[in-house]
């Protein structure tokens, strides 16, 4: 049974507790924001000194010629423009670091990027440059085929991964630790003497954390929009997915907070699990090139479904791990199951020492 008056007052109390304790705000926002900064830093360290051969067909449209001009003006990558015959010759000789074949027109095929097996050229950097050049030339989408392994822009991939990681931290630690602290301080004990139900108490913890999660998500989505061409419908879809994901993480937080009695436990248990999930679930970077057993992990890790859904929502690129509907269905199913467990197993008080003596009523 839900007591709406108590729900409101408890939610308000939670908000006040969170906002009046600046340490909590720092704890919630600073680590994810620092992580978000890591990926632009990585991206900025990918200057290509290698000369990239840009093959421009003789019958290229003005728009494609503009793309070529934009690429030549790129400050980070050095493009040398050649015609189709020269491009083919270099390909046959293997005398290239990277070959980029432009189509004659925007709708007349994909850009093909080829690199030799030992090439150190970062294909994602060429893709990013191509995308920016195409936008500058007025082409909204220029399909690219690299014909090789999976390459994803680490900036996009990492931004989504960081959002997932931040939501997971906020959901698991941001929920579990205050609940354990409240139990240790005896606040839950006092609440238990009132007619407030477990469900009311658990639900009341949601709004304050949800607002923080919304804030984090909006920051990440605005960053995405600034970095690549994310549309508003894409942002709206990603926002919905992120909130569903946060619910899943918060449910894990309640489960941990509702059952563990020591504040250090969520970090001790949660940090390794979260780190393993982020790596094994291909959340922060793709698993291409990893051993086969590592590549087989994502289907077993809930985080991978959420990250995959968000990547699809935001058009990060690269192949999807699962269909979008499956991603969302799995996240929803896990969320409901963990929420049910969290409410059932929620413990108001510290565990009592059991009685080991003789049956007292026997005498």
């Amino acid at each position, binding site marked *: 049974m839900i*007591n709406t008056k108590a729900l409101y007052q408890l939610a308000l109390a939670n908000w006040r507790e969170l906002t009046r304790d600046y340490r909590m705000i720092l704890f919630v926002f600073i680590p994810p924001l620092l992580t978000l900064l890591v990926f632009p830093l990585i991206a900025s360290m990918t200057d290509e000194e290698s000369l990239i051969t840009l093959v421009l067909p003789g019958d290229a449209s003005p728009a494609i010629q503009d793309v070529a001009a934009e690429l030549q003006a790129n400050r980070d990558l050095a493009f040398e423009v050649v015609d189709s015959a020269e491009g083919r010759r270099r390909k046959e000789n293997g005398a290239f670091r990277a070959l980029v074949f432009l189509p004659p027109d925007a709708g007349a095929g994909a850009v093909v990027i080829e690199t030799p097996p030992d090439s150190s050229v970062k294909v994602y950097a060429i893709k990013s440059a191509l995308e920016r050049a195409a936008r500058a030339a007025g082409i909204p989408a220029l399909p690219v085929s690299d014909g090789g392994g999976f390459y994803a822009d680490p900036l996009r991939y990492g931004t989504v991964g960081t959002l997932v990681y931040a939501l997971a931290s906020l959901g698991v630690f941001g929920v579990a630790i205050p609940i354990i602290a409240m139990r240790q301080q005896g606040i839950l*004990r006092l609440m*238990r003497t*009132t007619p407030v*139900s477990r469900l009311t108490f658990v639900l009341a913890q949601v709004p304050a954390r949800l607002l923080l999660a919304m804030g984090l998500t909006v920051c990440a989505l605005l960053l995405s929009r600034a970095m690549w061409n994310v549309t508003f419908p894409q942002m709206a879809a990603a926002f919905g997915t992120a909130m569903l994901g946060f619910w899943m993480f918060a449910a894990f937080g309640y489960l941990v907070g509702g059952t563990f009695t020591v504040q250090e436990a969520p970090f001790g248990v949660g940090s390794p699990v979260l780190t393993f999930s982020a790596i094994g679930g291909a959340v922060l970077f793709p698993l291409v090139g990893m051993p086969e057993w590592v590549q087989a992990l994502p289907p077993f890790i809930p985080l991978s479904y959420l990250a995959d859904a968000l990547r699809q929502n935001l058009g990060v690129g690269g192949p999807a791990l699962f269909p979008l509907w499956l991603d969302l269905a799995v996240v929803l199913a896990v969320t409901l199951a963990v929420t049910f467990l969290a409410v059932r197993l929620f413990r108001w008080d510290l565990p009592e020492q059991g*009685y080991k003596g003789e049956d*007292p009523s026997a005498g």
Partner: protein
Amino acid sequence: MSNAVVAVRNLFKGYGNYLAVNDVSLEVQRGEIFGILGPNGAGKTTLIEMMCGLRLPTSGTVRVFGFDPHLQQLDVTSRIGVQPQKAGLFDHLTVQETLQLFASAYSDPEPVASVLESVDLVELRKLLVKRLSGGQRQRLLLGVALISGSELLFLDEPTGSLDPRARRRLWEIIMERKQRGRTIILTTHSMEEAQALCDRIAIMHRGRILAMGTPRELMEQYLPERMITFEMEMPPDEARLRVIRGVLQVLVTPSAGRYLVRVRTAEADETLRRLMDPGLFPTARGFRMEQATLEDLFLLLVRRPPGKEEAV
């Protein structure tokens, strides 16, 4: 039909190999102040926490308004207000916000302003809980119990950390709630408090209830003797004193040229009549009669050798 709001039958609570509450049975009637009196570690808190559903009994039954506090938690918590001995509060809420929060849990709470006044925290209402002193915090915890507007209040050592003035104020609050028809169950190790507040008391020691009843009943049952004190100019004839009916003990203490005589008697009226007979004790004067206190009773009960302790 019983008017009991709380009924406890053969209640046990054990930890490890130790029984903190050992075969306790009692009933608390509607509208009374019932005190559970005992030293630290007697099992008072464990008992009261089982009554309000905070602890699960090892065996035995507890019924509050006829409900099991564990299995029918909502039926019980909606009708009780609890002030645990130790409990946490939200540190970053103000005093007033704390009371508003707990008021929201009940269907018919007392007004926050009146509770603030009752517990003397009006001036501190905007102060964060983390800035309160121990005594102020204790008063706020009492306010949390009072705000429920419940018909049954459980107060676990409510005056434990209060100064004498605050303690007297709290007694007034408790008596005022009694006048409004509330039932109050409190634990204390203060004899003075039990005597001042409680209609009935249970004296607990080592998990057992050693005696239970009104303070008067208990005194008459366990310490019916009175102490008669008087002065004499000459040394009294102790043998003559001892043969007076009811006299149990005679103590004579010389004091500034006089003799202070203390006579413990089981038949105070008859003893006094004989002592005041001028023919028997012509120089006796300054008669005073004293009754033993709850403290004497408490000491009498808890100092009995283990084999002689009898649980009620």
